């Protein structure tokens, strides 16, 4: 019984996100360090979906956490803290994507030898081998990022939030402050463009193999 009570006490001692937020707002700002420790990995991972440069992704994660800290007073408990933080991170990444906006046609073009080998492997290997190889090959990520770079910022936001975070169209619309119709159109366009670009890459490497 004593052990059970101890476990209960221990479990009670683990503060929820909302408890920690209340502590921060109550003046114990050090509690934000625990919130950061809990959510940092997810925030960094989301940033990495948008930016292949790891240092850049870390900077943006840091900026997102800073914005969360400075705007904590505006947090309302109706939505989980993780969702609120994800919305902040998505918006930070969106701002950065728009700031760095480049012409899409510049992006899917000349590949390095490693990326060409990867495209060739995707063209020829069995599905099982493709999955196994992708885990170890950095160029698989590089090429995927280049493919995503071909999308406009709005399309890319929808693609990443839908595919990686598995958010619904309504949730994405709420995070981005867009209409549901806009999200649907963006998702459709993004999928079409990604498929077209991927086809282009695969076809060009199919041709090379045939020669």
């Amino acid at each position, binding site marked *: 019984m004593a052990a059970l009570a101890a476990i209960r006490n221990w479990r009670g001692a683990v503060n929820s996100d909302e408890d920690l937020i209340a502590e921060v707002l109550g003046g114990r700002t050090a509690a934000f360090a625990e919130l950061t420790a809990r959510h940092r990995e997810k925030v960094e991972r989301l940033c990495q979906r948008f930016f292949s440069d790891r240092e850049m992704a870390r900077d943006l994660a840091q900026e997102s956490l800073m914005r969360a800290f400075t705007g904590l007073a505006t947090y309302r408990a109706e939505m989980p803290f993780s969702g609120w933080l994800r919305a902040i991170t998505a918006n930070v990444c969106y701002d950065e994507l728009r700031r760095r906006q480049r012409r899409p046609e510049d992006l899917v073009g000349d590949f390095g030898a490693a990326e060409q080998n990867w495209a060739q492997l995707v063209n020829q290997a069995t599905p099982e081998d493709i999955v196994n190889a992708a885990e170890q090959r950095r160029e698989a990520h590089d090429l995927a*990022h280049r493919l995503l770079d071909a999308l406009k910022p709005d399309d890319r936001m929808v693609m990443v939030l839908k595919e990686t975070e598995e958010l619904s169209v309504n949730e994405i619309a709420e995070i981005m402050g867009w209409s549901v119709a806009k999200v649907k159109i963006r998702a459709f366009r993004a999928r079409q463009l990604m498929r077209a670009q991927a086809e282009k890459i695969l076809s060009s490497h199919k041709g090379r193999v045939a020669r």
Partner: protein
Amino acid sequence: MNCFEARKEFGAFWCRTLTPEMRVAFSAHLGRCAKCDRSFRTFALSAPVLHSEREPEPRPRPAGTARSAVRPLAARRVPSQRNGMAPWRAMAAAAILLIISGTAAWRAAAPASQDVMEAIAGDDPAVEPVSYTPDAGIFSQDVIGTDPSVQEPLAPDNNPVQSEGLAG
């Protein structure tokens, strides 16, 4: 497994969350359906970013290109070098970020703000934690007193105009 079912499972196959039987059925379907096979290959080009939980370690940077480990937060991204942004815009953005961050930290309890900044910076050795803890010393009388450019107001006894006025 038919085409519709197979296409629904691209993500699950990539993440290895399919049962062994489903996995075999999936591979078998792709083996006999050229359209689904092609779709999976186009999917596989973006899947490493969209459907993988973690990325492989980045390639080591060539020697001499490592960035300085000691840099303030605002100086870490240099937009003007990345995409041709005008330097004044980068500096303005950095200044705004510093002001916002400084104001926020000022409002927070001073001793704790260092902890928060360190926590946000994480354990990345390349990130120098930035503290915006207000330094009250710069506003103190001591500093003003030692600044030769700042003249102390004259005491009434030493001020001839004031002394005369009071005497009269």
